[in-house]
């Protein structure tokens, strides 16, 4: 007798088709060439580079060029991709995942790589038309469809998402006002000095910046109250716009995990193997709280590389190769508006005991800053001169005591040769032969 709901089984089930999910697939296939893998995603496309939606909106790239992996990725890796379908319920006891279309998928190992969704503040009037978020390709398409030659935009939030959207809008010739609650752009990613460089670049690009303010009310258009016509700020000022973007951050998508009874704090709680409290259920990326080696605790660090690497560690463990996540931290690279800025870890440590800040600069072209905590790197910011920053991040990742050569870290000629000989040899060990 045919069953009413189809129940199919898979060895590895991955919810989410972005950095974390792809990282897991590639890791699983390194260990297990044949075990069936299924990916479920509510987005209808193959994995694409989310950060490229800015270039896409600006008309600088196409969906084809934004694909994160070649078009034959799923076929070549034996992955069944169920795209454009939302997972609705997780049953841990029966090891099943219900989809919104009525199907149930049975799994042996499960990865929740569900990402985040834009945080929406409760602003009166925010149900009008013309309000957008900017984290998906569909968001970019919606904004593009709404733009007219006379469009004016207000972007709430001067973080990375707000900046990426503003960059695209500026390219399209749309006047933009950014409204930021804090006193500078990218306040969570950059120190004051680097943020001032970004601020200058934004102003030079014609962007109007409003700091220390938020939007109290979304106003309608005089002739069409259903549609956004402007915003009223806390201080009473009114800004007119027909495009209002909300870019104040992302909230981890944890519902599947929470409703199934898995421990969830801000994100889904995972151990150093990226496993949840259920031995066969893993989580990674923007949805999970994974180990941060700067803060020494589990926390959400919603950035692409951490999602990929977390997914990779989860995938290896799911396939039976025991692997420990060495941890990630908040790190960012910025190239918008022709800038070259990188940052990682603590940016403004304050005057706490045990902290030391090293800074150097070459007039207007370069700025380098390293934050030390008990002689070890806890944060870095490089502007202009960024090419050796990865060495500093490596020292930070490894928790190396840098006291003996700390000044060199911010020197213009810093490099591997700045490291003490023993450390340098250790780092290059796999690649250097001893002189005969």
């Amino acid at each position: 007798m045919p069953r009413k709901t189809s129940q199919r089984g898979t060895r590895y089930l991955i919810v989410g088709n972005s950095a974390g999910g792809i990282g897991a697939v590639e890791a699983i296939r390194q260990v297990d060439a044949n075990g069936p893998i299924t990916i479920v995603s509510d987005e209808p496309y193959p994995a694409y580079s989310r950060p490229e939606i800015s270039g896409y909106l600006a008309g600088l790239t196409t969906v084809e060029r934004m694909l994160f992996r070649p078009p034959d990725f799923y076929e070549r890796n034996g992955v069944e991709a169920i795209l454009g379908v939302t997972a609705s319920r997780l049953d841990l006891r029966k090891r099943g995942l219900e989809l919104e279309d009525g199907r149930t998928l049975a799994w042996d190992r499960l990865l929740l790589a569900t990402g985040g969704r834009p945080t929406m503040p409760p602003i009166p009037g925010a149900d009008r038309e013309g309000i957008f978020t900017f984290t998906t390709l569909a968001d970019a398409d919606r904004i593009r469809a709404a733009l007219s030659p006379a469009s004016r935009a207000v972007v709430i939030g001067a973080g990375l998402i707000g900046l990426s959207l503003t960059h695209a809008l500026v390219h399209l010739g749309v006047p933009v006002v950014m409204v930021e609650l804090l006193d500078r752009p990218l306040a969570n990613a950059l120190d004051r000095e680097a943020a001032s460089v970004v601020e200058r670049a934004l102003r030079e690009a014609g962007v109007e910046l409003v700091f220390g303010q938020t939007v109290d009310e979304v106003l309608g258009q005089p002739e069409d109250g259903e549609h956004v016509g402007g915003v009223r700020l806390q201080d009473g000022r009114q800004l007119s716009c027909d495009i209002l973007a909300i870019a104040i951050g992302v909230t981890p998508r944890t519902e599947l995990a929470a409703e199934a009874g898995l421990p969830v704090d801000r994100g889904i709680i995972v151990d150093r193997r990226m496993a949840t409290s259920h031995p066969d259920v893993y989580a990674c990326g923007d949805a999970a709280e994974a180990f941060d080696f700067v803060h020494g605790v589990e926390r959400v660090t919603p950035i692409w590389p951490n999602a990929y690497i977390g997914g990779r560690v989860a995938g290896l463990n799911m396939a039976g190769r025991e692997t420990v996540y060495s941890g990630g931290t908040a790190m960012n690279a910025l190239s918008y508006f022709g800038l070259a800025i990188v940052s990682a870890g603590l940016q403004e440590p304050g005057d706490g005991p045990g902290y030391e800040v090293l800074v150097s600069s070459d007039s207007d072209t370069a700025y380098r800053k390293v934050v030390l905590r008990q002689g070890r790197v806890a944060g870095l910011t490089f502007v202009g001169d960024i090419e050796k920053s990865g060495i500093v991040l490596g020292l930070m990742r490894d928790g190396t005591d840098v006291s003996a050569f700390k000044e060199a870290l911010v020197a213009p000629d810093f490099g591997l040769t700045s490291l003490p000989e023993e450390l340098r040899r250790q780092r290059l060990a796999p690649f250097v032969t001893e002189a005969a």
Partner: protein
Amino acid sequence: MGCGLCEVHCLVEHSRTRDVIKAYLRERPSPLARLRVERQDHLFLPVQCRHCPEPLCVYSCLTGALSRDPTTGEVHVDEAHCIGCWTCILACPYGAIRRDPQRGIIAKCDLCPDRSLPACVAACPNEAILYVEEAL
């Protein structure tokens, strides 16, 4: 000894004209050497991509432009997909990836696909740069 011939030969190898004078003076966008010799007092170290078995640059790449060939172990950048976000530069623990500011993308060692031996290795008068193949 810090002669820098590896940089010169690398730059010419990655130029359009493959002519040292034109490569240095005329070509636009200007070709870039994919390795650099670090100089610190009497210490000289040519630094190029190590083609790591666990490539943090590949794991960090936002676009999929960087990949590691599973059969050769070589780490390559697909220039058509690089958007010059510089995330790999921050990720590389060797500081081996460069910005190509004129093209707005990264420049890294490609092991000279048109040659049997990378140009830096062939050009080094002191045999200080070795090219060694290892089993994966």
